[in-house]
Structure formats: structure tokens, C-alpha cells
């Protein structure tokens, strides 16, 4: 599935949810279903700097595609983090670097991605792109 198709898919998933409690509950569910990050990876080096809830993020690359792994100690943040992991994982670094998670606006969660919001999600997206950039550089050197 292309990253654009993924955007549309996520928006469609949220379309059927009637109101904010349903949307938030769905987001929390996405978080709880995400593969847990091994405790060994929940270390300071993997921490995304956010003001309030903690977000850990790691990544690796297989066959030119980046895979992300993440976790958070807050349920709503974790759900949003899971959405981002699902969105960006499985794509090549160039795609990740040139795509923004526009769906966040359409599913009514834009405020969570605001760089001024103290939940670390904006920093997380930035960190995901930094990983993509690093993999791209590494690839070009090998």
C-alpha cells in the first residue's frame, strides 16, 4: 500500500467514528494493540523530548524500508504514536522525508501535532524523519 493510500485508509477509518469520545477510544485501542517496545529499548537515548508524557522511538531498515518501533507512558499519546508508526513504517527514506502526516488534521487530532503542544508528538515525527535521513545517508555511503 502506498503512503498516500495509507493516508486515505486512516481517514476512512476515523470517518465512521461519530464523536470525540469514539475517536479517542479508537486511538487508545490502536496504542494498546501496538507491539510493545522491549524494556531494554525504553532508555534515555531513545526518548523523544516532549514536555509531559514520555515517548520512546527506535528504527531499523530492512531491504530499503524503514521500520519504526515506539511506546509511550500515556495512553492517548501512545495511540497517536502507534498511528505514526503504522503510517511511516514500511516505506523508503525518501518517501518518509517527503511525506507529512496530513491525515492528522482530517481525523480531528491536528492540535496534538502542534509543535507547541507539550505531548512530544511533533518532536516524534521530526525524530522519525531524522532516522529516515540517517538511513538514507548510510545507504548512499555503502
Amino acid at each position, binding site marked *: 500500500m502506498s503512503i498516500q493510500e495509507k493516508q486515505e485508509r486512516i481517514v476512512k477509518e476515523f470517518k465512521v467514528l461519530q464523536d*470525540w*469520545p469514539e475517536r*479517542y*477510544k479508537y486511538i*487508545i485501542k490502536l496504542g494498546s494493540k501496538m507491539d510493545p517496545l522491549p524494556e531494554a529499548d525504553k532508555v534515555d537515548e531513545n526518548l523523544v523530548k516532549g*514536555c*509531559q*508524557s*514520555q515517548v520512546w522511538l527506535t528504527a531499523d531498515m530492512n531491504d530499503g524500508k524503514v521500520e519504526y518501533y515506539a511506546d509511550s*507512558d*500515556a*495512553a*492517548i*499519546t501512545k495511540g497517536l504514536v502507534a498511528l505514526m508508526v503504522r503510517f511511516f513504517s514500511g516505506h523508503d527514506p525518501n518517501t518518509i522525508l517527503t511525506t507529512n502526516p496530513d491525515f492528522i488534521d482530517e481525523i480531528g487530532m491536528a492540535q496534538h501535532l502542534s509543535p507547541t503542544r*507539550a*505531548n512530544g508528538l511533533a518532536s516524534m515525527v521530526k525524530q522519525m524523519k531524522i532516522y529516515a535521513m540517517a538511513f538514507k545517508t548510510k545507504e548512499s555511503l555503502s
Partner: protein
Amino acid sequence: MATTEVLVMEDTIKKDTTRLTTDWQAVRKQFPVLQQKVHGQPLVYLDNGASSQMPQSTIDRINRYHSAEHSNVHRGIHTLSQRGTDYYEETRKKVKKFINARHLEEVIYTTGTTDSINLVAQSYGRKYFREGDEIILSEMEHHANIVPWQMIAEQTGAVLRVIPMTDNGELKMDDFHHLLSDRTKMVAVVHVSNALGTINPVEEIIEAAHARDIPVLLDGAQAVPHSVVDMQKLDVDFYAFSAHKMCGPTGFGILYGKKELLQEMPPYRGGGDMIDKVTFEKTTWNDLPHKFEAGTPPIAVGIGLGTSLDYLNEIGMEQIEAREHELLDYATQELSKIEDVRIIGSSAKKASVISFLIGDIHPTDAGTILDQKGIAVRTGHHCAQPVMQHYNIPGTVRASLSFYNNEEDIDRLVEGIKYVKEFFG
């Protein structure tokens, strides 16, 4: 509607009692921010510890400045500048009276509590701190009363000593007395904790420090807006607070300092307004308080604070303190009834701040859902990470109450908490 007409039933109010005689419903109506809906529901504003709201009179006063009086203060020969200077300086007189300072020049304008503490740390500290000297802080300090001291400690070789606290959120006073020594050069503690609400025994702290000729700075950001604070009675050396926590606008604050101390302290920011004579060889300083007030200040904001002080005086700080206490008691009682709610900070003497956790729900999750219900609370570490480390928690949900809140707000918060529990249950 004139403020004076509705605020207080003048004939019944007695300033020396805490009997509530104020028409609080009328008071609430004077805060336009509170009359709005958030996410479709009437706003319940419980983040007063971070920033309190401004009454209409302050907003009108600031508007008037911008529409009819704007120019620059001090030194201007024209009418607008002179008028502006008078209004701006009028606030200093009002502050002096409000905190009962001995002299007008003991009231220094700053940009807020943080700026006030930085001023003392840099100016007093650089002059007097030497290697091995000790600065005593407490475990419940806001970062604003930690970091400036860490910075000056690094510059001078002084070290920080910390008064520990109990699990109730009270300072261990025996430890404090033991920490005092000949090496102590400053005691800087919070008057009222922003994260826990604890009212600290500052009289005892000041007395013990003064017995050894050690100056005391109090972070009064959470104390001044909620009670009568008397500089002469406290005999404190430095006292810092912010306008925006006392129904004033943001970007303005006060440093109170004893005249004899301030006079000996060098300026810490240079520029216009703070000078006497400038040549490229040497500059001499202006007198107090202007020595510490370099550059064009936030004039509108300073004038606005004056109006906010008038407003608070009109209600009476005794009335405010009593009303907030009443609200705190009600909130504590109602929150305690909810299963799984754990109140953090249960000092015997508390101001109207309730920090709490709901089961193991992360404070940001709780805050996000409460916001959807139109309830504004603060979540996180409240810029007091050592306090959170003490309890080994990531943060708390904090409801901070002001006199314009009411029982209905607290009932809405209780409903909100129950909803949060259900939501994450």
C-alpha cells in the same frame, strides 16, 4: 456596571474578619474569559496557579492605554510621556501598599517571578558568593527558584543545599535548622508550593536565617495572589512575584528587596533608564529602583497591574483568602470521595491548589479528556520535577482555584474525573 457597585456589600464587610460578605456571583461576572464555552461546554477554569484571569476593569485600563495613552515612559517632555510615566509609577505605589514595603524604591519592576529571582541570584550572588558558600533551597521549589541558583553556583563555586520534605509535602524543618551554617549565604524557598499547595513556615525560616545574618528570598508567586503578604511583618529580604497570577497581565512582576541590600547590589542588565551618566570610559548607575530596570518596560502591563491591585483591594485579600479556603475544603472533600483519586500534598496548611492522580491514568491523558469536557486543569510536573521525583510519579493533574471559581466548577471537575475513570476503565 461599575465595579464598586456590585463587588462588595460595603456596609457588611469587616476587613478584620474572614466572614464572607462578598457577592461572589457578581465577582465572577466581571471576568469575561469565564463567560465562554470550550468544546461546547461552559468553561471551568482551574488553571489559576499558572495564570489567573483579568477582570474587565484591568482589560479596559490596558485598552485605554493603547488607544489613548501609548508613548514611552520616563524622560519624555511631552504630555503623553509624562502622563504615561505617572500612571506607570502609580502602580509602584500601589504595590508598595499592597505588600506593605517600607520604601517605594524597594519595589523593583521585573518581567515576573523568574526574572526577579535571576536578578537577585546574578546581582547579589556575583557580588557576595564565594567558593564553598552554600545556598539553601527546598525540595519543593519551582524550577525558577532552582536554576538561577545553579547558574550562579557554577559561576562562583557556591553549592546548593536542599531542605527535604515529608510525604505530606511539608518541609522537614529540623533538617533546615541543621543545614544552616557559617557557609550559608542565602536561603531561597517557596512561600506557597505551586505543585502541592503547601504554605511553608516562612516566619520560622526567616527568623532562623536572620539569627545568623543570612538573607532570605521567598518565591511568592503563589502566595501574594491568595493572602495578605506583609513585607515588614515578614521582615523578608527579597520577595518575588508575578502580575499574571494576581489577576494582572503577563510579562510583568515584582522584586521586593530591602533598600539597604538593593543599594549595595550592582545592576545585572545594562541599557537605557538604568544609567546616571554614560561615557565610553565609565557609566554610573541611576538610583533605585531604576538601577535594575534597563530598557523600555511593558508599560501597558504595568499600568494594568495597578488596576488589578485596585480590584483585589476592593474585594479585600482577607475575603479572597477565606473564600479560596472554603473552595479548597469543598474540593478536597469532594475529590476524596472519588475512589482511586490520590491527592498529592496534604500539608496541614495549604493554599487552594489540589494536585492529584486518578488511579494509574497518566495525567496528560486525564487532562486531554477533561479539556474535551471544557475543564481547564494543568497536567505534568508543574516545573517542579524534584517534587515529582520525591513521589516517583510522572506528574499530577492540578486544579488551582481562584476566588471567582465556585462550587459548581468543583462539581463539574468531580463529574469530569468520574468520566475520565470510566473512559480509561
